[in-house]
């Protein structure tokens, strides 16, 4: 095939040599009908258009039922599951929650979260490093019972990939453990740019660390000047009241706000 336009004439550009072997000729391209039929389709569509459409459908489904959804994203081990355990214990009795957990393998997180009264659904992504809107859409009906006010989606532990996939949530929340250092927001700007709320977790460990609070806050604001930053320790309970109040306010303001 012609390397320039893909027409088939390029194929004919060999001749049999005297020794019986084929010789590739440096071909001169002739403008044929095929050449003139070459055209460019201007598309300008988002590659993730299908995911976005499914996410929009999820968002509509949730809005029709008055449910607010948050998407928790962090690196593995930043404290998403412990924060969720404590959140369910304290919040679910007053504000019905439902949880969807994404993990590559095992249902360990889902098992930790069960028994807190709220329905917990696991999506085992196996080799995929993120949740997508289709996976959420397939289980919304079963995972989120009538009467739910807050859907919490715990994404796969990963600071890069989950940021690219809208799930239909109303708010992306990034978690950053203080043990991860101050410069993660600069190293992973895509997520921190998209997350209007950043939770700094594990602050009970601060006495053992050389963590610079001002620098960490500044780094977050360089990427996301208007970000809401909260600090907490789910283990010790520090900052939990503010977090729960934040969720209550988010739900009472109504989804999409």
């Amino acid at each position: 095939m012609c390397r320039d336009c893909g027409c088939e004439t390029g194929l004919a550009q060999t001749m049999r040599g005297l020794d019986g072997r084929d010789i590739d000729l440096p071909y001169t391209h002739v403008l044929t009908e095929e050449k003139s039929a070459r055209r460019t389709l201007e598309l300008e569509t988002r590659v993730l258009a299908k995911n976005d459409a499914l996410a929009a459908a999820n968002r509509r489904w949730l809005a029709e039922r008055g449910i607010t959804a948050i998407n928790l994203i962090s690196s593995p081990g930043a404290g998403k599951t412990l924060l969720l355990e404590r959140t369910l214990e304290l919040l679910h009795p007053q504000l019905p929650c439902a949880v969807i957990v994404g993990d590559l393998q095992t249902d360990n997180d889902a098992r930790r979260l069960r028994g807190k009264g709220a329905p917990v659904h696991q999506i085992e992504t196996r080799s995929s490093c993120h949740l997508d809107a289709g996976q959420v859409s397939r289980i919304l009906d079963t995972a989120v019972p009538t009467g739910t006010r807050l859907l919490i989606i715990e994404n796969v532990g990963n600071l890069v990939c989950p940021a690219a996939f809208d799930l239909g949530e109303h708010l992306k929340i990034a978690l950053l453990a203080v043990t991860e250092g101050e410069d993660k927001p600069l190293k992973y700007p895509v997520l921190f740019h998209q997350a209007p709320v950043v939770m700094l977790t594990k602050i009970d460990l601060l006495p053992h660390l050389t963590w610079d609070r001002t620098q960490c806050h500044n780094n977050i604001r360089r990427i996301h000047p208007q970000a809401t930053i909260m600090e907490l320790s789910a283990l010790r309970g520090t900052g939990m009241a503010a977090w729960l109040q934040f969720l209550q306010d988010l739900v009472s303001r109504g989804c999409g706000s």
Partner: protein
Amino acid sequence: MHELSLAMALVEQLQEILAQEKVSKPLAVTVAIGALSGVDHEALSFCYPLVTAGTSLEGVALQVEEVRLRVRCQDCGRESQPEEVYLLNCGACASARVEVVAGREFTLRALEVA
């Protein structure tokens, strides 16, 4: 490495377009990758041939246009292009109240066909 999923979404979308436009011979695909899109050019270029293998897009070139970050300042109104994606402030007045106007996109820009 979510670029494998992205490459799969791209190919799925392209195949729909080929069917819709009744194109038998795709020649080249052009995508735009914004600096703040979270899509890695190299990783996408690595995954694309793997995903197109055995499909009507096998061997069809993937051209990538990299889109620089552009922000508009809500204080002085001017647009500027930050050198680094982690420095989201106005190049003219240094205000941090900026809005991203380009650089977030990951789009299928064009498909050249015969």
